[in-house]
């Protein structure tokens, strides 16, 4: 898809129907393991790791999203990265698994406001009404693979690989400008 930019006249005084913002960095881990070790590794990391694809377990500021039958994505405050790696290493002998830090692989955008869902529909083929608040899924945004979190009725978060981020951001900005101009 080519990106066309326009000089829209944004209606003055109105509040933007949707905002797109860079989010602060977080610690990110990719976790892969067999079912037999799910409970032990989950306990070491502080979670009851969910089994249904799209479900999220939360423990204080940490979140574990089930991406597939043997795959989870973990988000945590940056300061907890070392503690998470150490907890995984401590459980490894009894419960072998793969826990890889991918904090720098992706950046996240916050997409909020009454038109947030509509903005995402410019490039995400999912039926977003079926993504319940609190859940998240791996899907596509235009041609880029992303993880889409729904944090509220009008609040989404998009994890994007860094190399795809300029493309995704350009599409979001173009859509945001159109929605702000009242289209």
């Amino acid at each position, binding site marked *: 898809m080519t990106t066309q930019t326009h000089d829209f006249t944004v209606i003055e005084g109105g509040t933007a129907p949707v905002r797109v913002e860079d989010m602060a960095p977080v610690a990110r881990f990719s976790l892969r393991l067999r079912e037999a070790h799910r409970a032990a590794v989950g306990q070491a990391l502080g979670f009851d790791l969910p089994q249904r*694809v*799209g479900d999220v377990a939360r423990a204080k500021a940490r979140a574990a999203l089930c991406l*597939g*039958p043997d795959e989870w994505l973990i988000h945590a405050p940056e300061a907890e990265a070392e503690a998470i790696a150490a907890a995984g290493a401590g459980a490894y002998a009894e419960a072998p698994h793969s826990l890889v830090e991918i904090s720098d692989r992706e950046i996240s955008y916050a997409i909020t406001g009454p038109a947030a869902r509509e903005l995402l529909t410019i490039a995400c*083929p*999912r039926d977003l009404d*079926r993504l319940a608040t609190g859940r998240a899924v*791996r*899907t596509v945004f235009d041609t880029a*693979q992303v993880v889409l979190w729904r944090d509220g009725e009008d609040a989404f978060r998009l994890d994007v690989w860094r190399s795809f981020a300029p493309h995704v951001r350009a599409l979001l900005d173009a859509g945001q400008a159109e929605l702000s101009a009242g289209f």
Partner: protein
Amino acid sequence: MLLIHCPYCDETLPELEFAYAGEAHVDRPADPSALSDEEWRDFLFIRANPKGPHFERWRHVHGCARFFNAVRDTVSDRFLMTYKAGEPRPDISKLEEAQ
């Protein structure tokens, strides 16, 4: 756009999240060196290519990342069913009766 039911996610999702991966239930011979050149050629290249229900592999590459199997009618492009990798080939006559 086609909608495809992923048996691992248990959701019906847009085709854009999926990748086609060829005919299903093609087993690699246990002892390739015991095969004739013609048998090895058939394993590598010769496929059923039916007009009608086709057993085929798909991968939910932009979702749960799993491979699974599907029965798709190559005339109508309609998916008759999907099932997890490793499950036996479904009985096609029963599938057609159920239509």
